[in-house]
């Protein structure tokens, strides 16, 4: 009896394997057949939602865009020749381009992407296929990349402008980055060419700093950002600072180091300053607190001219994707609300947090309720201690033409498609 069951088990695994390898495109990436997955690809979702992995093993899948015909473009963080962008068309994956990077947006008949220094666009044909994969237009060039916070995440408005994150190549603008006892530099010079969102024209080639505008400043690093069409405004998710407990144990205990500062969502208007590096936002005291590198002690307030966040999330969860949902497939409460992909923390101790996609309801560009976990269990382990244990980490978000939600994972390169089928 036992042997028979074991044999049966082996057989079914073998059948599965052969199905998978047949769908293999000769690369290591795998396309899953478009059938419902009763296990929801390992994700935990609200009632009525389903998930399936439409692709696996794409590599470090960062941001993602879906065409009006349902093809999927994924930016892969790799410098391997010809592997920068993956295109999923039905059961087939193709790749093109050679540059690391994160940014990936479709607007009108163009695909906009970024390396860690440049912004490109590719013209699309009437089927939304890239016409000339080897010759994108180089829109912006020469953006600063000193490795830390190097992702040039992108979004566009409806007036032909493109917004580009240029992250601070530093934790808190100390004389010596992340060194215990090193003071913050007065008049932090990093803010001149980084630590903000820059605005460029979406249709002009070879722009650099002089051609763009520093649209908003005092943002340490932004990977998730989106244009909110309900109130015509830019929203960003900041990656908050690290090291309050490690570097300042005289002011912060381990618990406070874990819970501070909040990961903040900001609604930005031109000229706004979110205050980095001089302040951080304390989500428990609901205050802007002077950074200890600049004379703070965990209590002194600061940043009179800095804006307040629209939403404060728990610390260190690393928001890498932001999407305002405009589709009609999901129940009404999701309409115009924000999905946020939290890549998952590393800068906590004794247990990490995040590794999920959150949701916040919105109306007219204002949050109308508390945030909640929407899609969970990406990590695939209980009580995660270190990000290396995570089997998947959510990163990019996109909406399909039918209102499905797409989520990338940059550990293994899984692309999840989340749909609503009712109860």
């Amino acid at each position: 009896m036992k042997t028979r069951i074991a044999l049966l088990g082996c057989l079914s695994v073998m059948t599965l394997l052969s199905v998978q390898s047949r769908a293999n495109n000769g690369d290591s990436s795998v396309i899953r057949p478009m059938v419902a997955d009763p296990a929801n690809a390992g994700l935990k979702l609200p009632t009525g939602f389903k998930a399936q992995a439409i692709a696996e093993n794409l590599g470090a899948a960062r941001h993602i865009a879906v065409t009006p015909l349902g093809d999927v473009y994924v930016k892969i963080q790799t410098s391997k020749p010809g592997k920068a962008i993956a295109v999923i068309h039905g059961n087939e994956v193709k790749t093109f381009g050679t540059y690391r990077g994160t940014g990936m947006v479709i607007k009108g008949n163009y695909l906009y992407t970024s390396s860690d220094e440049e912004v490109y666009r590719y013209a699309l044909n009437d089927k939304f296929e890239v016409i000339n994969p080897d010759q994108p237009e180089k829109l912006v060039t020469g953006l600063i990349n000193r490795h830390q916070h190097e992702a040039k995440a992108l979004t566009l408005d409806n007036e032909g402008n493109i917004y580009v994150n240029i992250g601070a190549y530093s934790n808190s603008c100390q004389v010596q980055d992340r060194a215990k006892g090193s003071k913050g530099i007065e008049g932090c010079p990093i803010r001149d060419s980084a630590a903000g969102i820059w605005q460029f024209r979406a249709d002009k080639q070879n722009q650099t700093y002089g051609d763009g505008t520093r649209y908003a400043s005092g943002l340490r690093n932004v990977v998730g950002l989106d244009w909110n069409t309900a109130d015509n405004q830019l929203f960003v998710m900041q990656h908050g600072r690290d090291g309050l407990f490690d570097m300042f144990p005289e002011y912060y205990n381990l618990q406070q180091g874990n819970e501070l500062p909040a990961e903040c969502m900001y609604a930005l208007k031109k000229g706004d300053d979110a205050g980095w590096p001089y302040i951080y936002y304390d989500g428990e005291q609901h205050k802007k607190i002077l950074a200890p590198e600049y004379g703070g002690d965990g209590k002194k307030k600061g940043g009179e001219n800095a804006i307040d966040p629209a939403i404060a999330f728990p610390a260190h969860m690393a928001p890498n994707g932001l999407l305002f949902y405009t589709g009609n497939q999901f129940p009404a409460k999701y309409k115009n609300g924000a999905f946020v992909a939290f890549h998952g923390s590393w800068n906590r101790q004794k247990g990490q947090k995040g590794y999920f996609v959150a949701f916040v309801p919105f109306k007219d560009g204002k949050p109308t309720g508390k945030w909640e976990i929407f899609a969970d269990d990406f990590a695939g382990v209980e009580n995660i201690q270190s990000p290396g244990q995570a089997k998947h980490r959510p990163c990019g978000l996109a909406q399909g033409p039918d209102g499905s939600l797409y989520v990338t994972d940059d550990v293994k390169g899984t692309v999840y498609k989340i749909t609503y089928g009712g109860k």
Partner: protein
Amino acid sequence: MKKIILTGVALSAALSFLAAQTKKPVAGSSVARGKKVYEQYCLTCHQVDGSGVPHLNPPLIKTTFVLGEKPALVQVILKGMQSSVPIDDEYYSNNMPPHNFLKDQEIADVLTYVRNNFGNKAGAVTAAEVKAIRAKN
């Protein structure tokens, strides 16, 4: 049948007991002190299991630096590392700050701990060695 299983269990228990006996930590107290230093100054970045943070902070598991020549390894601790050149073919974007405020003995202890933990096996580092390497800077 049962007997075979039992002998097998007994054998493997005996074997693992033997293994535990021979796997005595190198320089016992140095490793114990080094663990404390690690938890205070290295753990957030390199993580509780030494696995690092993918793409950000490198692992301390069998890397060229960890198992390699002591001078280069001690210099990483004293001067930190901001090069962002690939480490064993992977690229890590964060900066490591200098830890020159640590005493010779603390550096020796933490490196001895790292070199005999996380699956690593390499010789202990002594305070005298750290002192000599620091003197060259």
